[in-house]
């Protein structure tokens, strides 16, 4: 069973994502911001990270850069999931090591399509 870390400061979004990911047979863990997510990754690297951009304490892009530096940090497939939907943000995310990018609002069809594109399904 693959694991996915859901990183989003919105409880509602985490719940929606969790439900979809469970249907896709993922084991999930949650974090409310980048710092919590980084801690989770230090404990155990997930197979996938579903990552919001704007969060308190540490945002998604800073988390991603830090995570990629950790031992084993190149393993997780990182899918951004954010309301930032302009080319500049997307470009920045790819440069920082994101594998895919979902523009909110999203639904299970989009999430599934993106996850299968990056070989998680």
């Amino acid at each position, binding site marked *: 069973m693959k694991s996915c870390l859901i990183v989003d400061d919105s409880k509602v979004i985490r719940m929606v994502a969790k439900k979809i990911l469970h249907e896709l047979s993922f084991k999930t863990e949650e974090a409310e911001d980048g710092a919590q997510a980084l801690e989770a990754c230090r404990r155990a690297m997930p197979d996938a990270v579903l990552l919001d951009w704007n969060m308190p304490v540490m945002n998604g892009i800073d988390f991603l850069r830090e995570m990629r530096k950790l031992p084993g940090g190149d393993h997780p497939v990182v899918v951004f999931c954010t309301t930032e939907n*302009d080319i500049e943000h997307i470009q920045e995310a*790819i440069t920082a090591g994101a594998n895919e990018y979902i523009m909110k609002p999203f639904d299970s069809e*989009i999430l599934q399509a993106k996850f299968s594109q990056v070989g998680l399904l």
Partner: protein
Amino acid sequence: MRPEDFDFVAKLLKDRSGLVITRDKAYLLESRLTPVARKRGLKGLEDLVGGLRTAGEDLLREVTEAMTTNESFFFRDIKPFDQFKAMVLPYMLANRAAKKTMRIWSAASSSGQEAYTLAMMLKEEGAKLAGWKIEIVGTDISTEMLEKAKAGLYSQFEVQRGLPIQLLVKYFKKTAEMWQIDPAIRGMVQYREYNLLHDLKPLGQFDVVFCRNVLIYFDQPTKTRVLDNISRVMPDDGFLYLGGAETVLGISDKFKPVPEQRGIYATTRVPGK
């Protein structure tokens, strides 16, 4: 809806586009044609059907178009496109090396995602195709969909179904609420209105044909007729792609499945033809 009205519209649709609509789908007629009636200032379906009996080409066409299902997405089903890149394209590049020309047809192109997927893939091949003249033709019966395809404008939802993010960044620009595909990619595809039930010869020959997710709407004799007609505009070494729920088996002997590959068929020449 009155049974005689249903029968009248069902026959009209079958004759014009091949669409088979059964009684249990009468609700579809109602939901899709009521807006057409309203637009014309008619009270409802009954008036529309009354009008259809004496209607001119415009209304008949509008009704036919309203009944088409146009769903499409980029890299639909993924595998056929991987397979195109890994097998069919190299095969064609080798077999057409002298002429350096190749023609690809998206035979029910809808809003253009299939044709543009192929165009982006070819663009990604880069230098390998230097000196080649590769034509991509997209055809559909729906003028509304053809207009959308030509404009190359897609919603945020549409660009997130199947399109890898790297290709979105590379080949699309954001315009207010929509995403528009690059003029260079748009320029690689020609769109034309064309009915698959008609003689296909005027379109010329195609080395590779994508005819996906349209035969499912036809009855068996119509499927046979369309597949036979498609085979007449293909060379001896051509390839045909069908949708995930479609096959040539038991329907046409002009194509044979490619071993170990789903959804792709090779042209066969029946002796004596």
